């Protein structure tokens, strides 16, 4: 069989993983829209969501939806804690310090998870069984459809949050002009705090939806987080739609690459794309509201 025969199948797999990159990328964008911080611990939220759900399900014996809900709430609390304990004290620090602090938090979270939950890779049961559906010549796991549905719902609710509520406007304002927002009585720290909660929750949901298809383990978060960031930059840094588009493009390209190059090089594909996009079009496919004005 030529590699071309696999392409539809790989394409559908790429869409699924792309949805996850999109969700993680959205998490990055949410925080960046409220402040200039880039939270490199974002991938850990994905891993934590899946890990906590697994242990509530297996150890606590909670029903699946309840376990998932509790896990999301716990991860949101962890996100809040991350802001209060690490980023709030460093709110006036320079970029290298913030970068190192979030990377340090990422090391701490992933290795504490290994300590508490063990180092074995874990998986969650699929929501509706593992019987693949056959559509045309492609096999699709039902879980993929759930992943796509969740991405779509989260995107809509995030859009409504940022464009249709006062809170979203306030977040946007504190990002665009911190001083002006302060003068209008918008607490910048509160906005960043809330953004951390929202992005942690999105990460946790992404983790819970993806884990039935891909295993998760304590160190899986870093790479997913980085690729989510690549997705957000690829689509257009600072735009929700950019993160979604970038996530799907990245997922599909990465998945299709398996057909043509040795699979060991798969993880490098995302970073090669990153270097190319940063070199030729740093503002991403859809353009970025941040890059030109702030000269990042």
């Amino acid at each position, binding site marked *: 069989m030529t590699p071309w025969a696999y392409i539809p199948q790989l394409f559908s797999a790429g869409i699924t993983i792309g949805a996850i990159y999109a969700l993680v990328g959205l998490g990055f964008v949410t925080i960046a829209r409220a402040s200039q911080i880039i939270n490199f611990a974002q991938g850990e939220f994905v891993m934590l969501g899946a890990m906590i759900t697994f242990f509530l399900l297996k150890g606590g014996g909670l029903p699946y939806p309840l376990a998932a809900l509790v896990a999301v709430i716990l991860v949101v609390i962890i996100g809040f804690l991350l802001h209060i304990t690490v980023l709030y004290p460093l709110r006036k620090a320079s970029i290298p310090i913030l970068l190192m602090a979030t990377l340090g938090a990422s090391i701490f979270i992933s290795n504490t998870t290994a300590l508490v939950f063990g180092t074995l890779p874990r998986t969650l049961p699929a929501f509706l069984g593992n019987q693949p559906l056959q559509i045309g010549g492609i096999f699709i796991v039902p879980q993929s459809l759930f992943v796509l549905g969740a991405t779509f719902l989260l995107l809509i609710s995030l859009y409504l949050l940022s464009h249709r509520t006062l809170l979203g406007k306030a977040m946007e304002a504190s990002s665009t002009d911190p001083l002006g927002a302060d003068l209008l009585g918008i607490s910048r720290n509160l906005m960043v705090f809330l953004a951390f909660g929202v992005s942690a929750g999105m990460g946790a949901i992404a983790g819970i939806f993806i884990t039935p298809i891909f295993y998760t383990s304590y160190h899986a978060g870093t790479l997913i987080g980085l690729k989510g960031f690549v997705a957000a930059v690829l689509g257009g840094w600072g735009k929700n739609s950019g993160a979604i588009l970038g996530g799907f493009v990245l997922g599909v390209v990465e998945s299709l690459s398996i057909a043509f190059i040795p699979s060991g090089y798969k993880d*490098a594909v995302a970073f090669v794309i990153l*270097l190319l996009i940063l070199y030729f079009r740093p503002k991403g496919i859809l353009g970025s509201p941040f890059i030109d004005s702030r000269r990042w």
Partner: protein
Amino acid sequence: MVDTNQKEFRKRDLLYVVPLWLLSLILPDPHLDHLRKESRFRRRDLFYLGGLLLLPLMWPDTHLHHLMVLAGINAILALGLSLFLGYAGQISLGHAAFFGIGVYTTAILTTRYGFPTFVAFWASALVSAALAYLIGKPILKLKGYFLALATLGFGEIFLVIVRESHSLTGGVIGIFGIPWFSLAGFSFDTYLKQYYLTWGVLIGLLLFSKNLIRSKIGRAFLAVATSEDAASTVGIKVAQIKLGAFVIGAAFAGFAGSLFACVMSTANPETFGLNLSVLIIMMVILGGMGNLYGPIAGAIFLTWLVDILGKYQEYSLPIYGLILILLLISFPDGIGTRLNIRLIYLISYFGRKKRREKAEL
């Protein structure tokens, strides 16, 4: 740079006053710096040098020697990065990749082609610098987080290539049996000899950096770090200066990598991941950016810390992450800087007053 309200004495400073009092005697005096002739060899340098020479002889403990060898290698890495991060003000999360390139160049040249280690030592730096030139040329137009991300991407690509090209690098298994460093028939085969080798190289590179910082190029680094726009208006070619700092940092990493290969006699891709890049940046930040002795102190401190934490096995990495965060929160501009400002100011106030008066005469 020094914020005036940082000079105030706070009650919680008492917590670390006592153990650090001795340190305050040998740390540089921030208020004398601008009065001192820069090129003069100072008493403090003699103190450091004597301490370095005598340290392994006073403690004949092989573990300590090995630790100091690693600290020296890390210090070379941190020194190179400090030119890029501390002086030119750019972030690189891919510095470990240049270290890896140095290690693999030495490993491949010595084991496959039988080159002497001394030749491989220079070749490593050259290959690292050449690659840094090729990589840096396109990506150094980025700034801040995006530069960090791009260099991180380069580091990850390097790791994947090393893991996958089995015929050249031995894949995940790596390369074994790299010979000891030898020069004119003298082989550095014990930890004690390696200690003097590593720190000798470090002192050479330190002198090079000190002169570099005082040269036109070094002043340009500082100008670029302060404001790229202002630097370009006075005729500094910002892109070239950044590229220069990047290439010099990479060459330092190449030297460090070569020494590392000769000391450990193995090359393994797991050594050059993101964790090493994070560690090097932490050394520079904790030592204090824009200071050449800082990264060396930071390297010794963090190498020692990692070694101590290694004893706690599975608890080591969580504690490590926690300590990194705590150090960043309490000393965001470097341990030395904070010490200079708070402690030395407090404790040796009167002594320094006399010295300052003397210097002003």
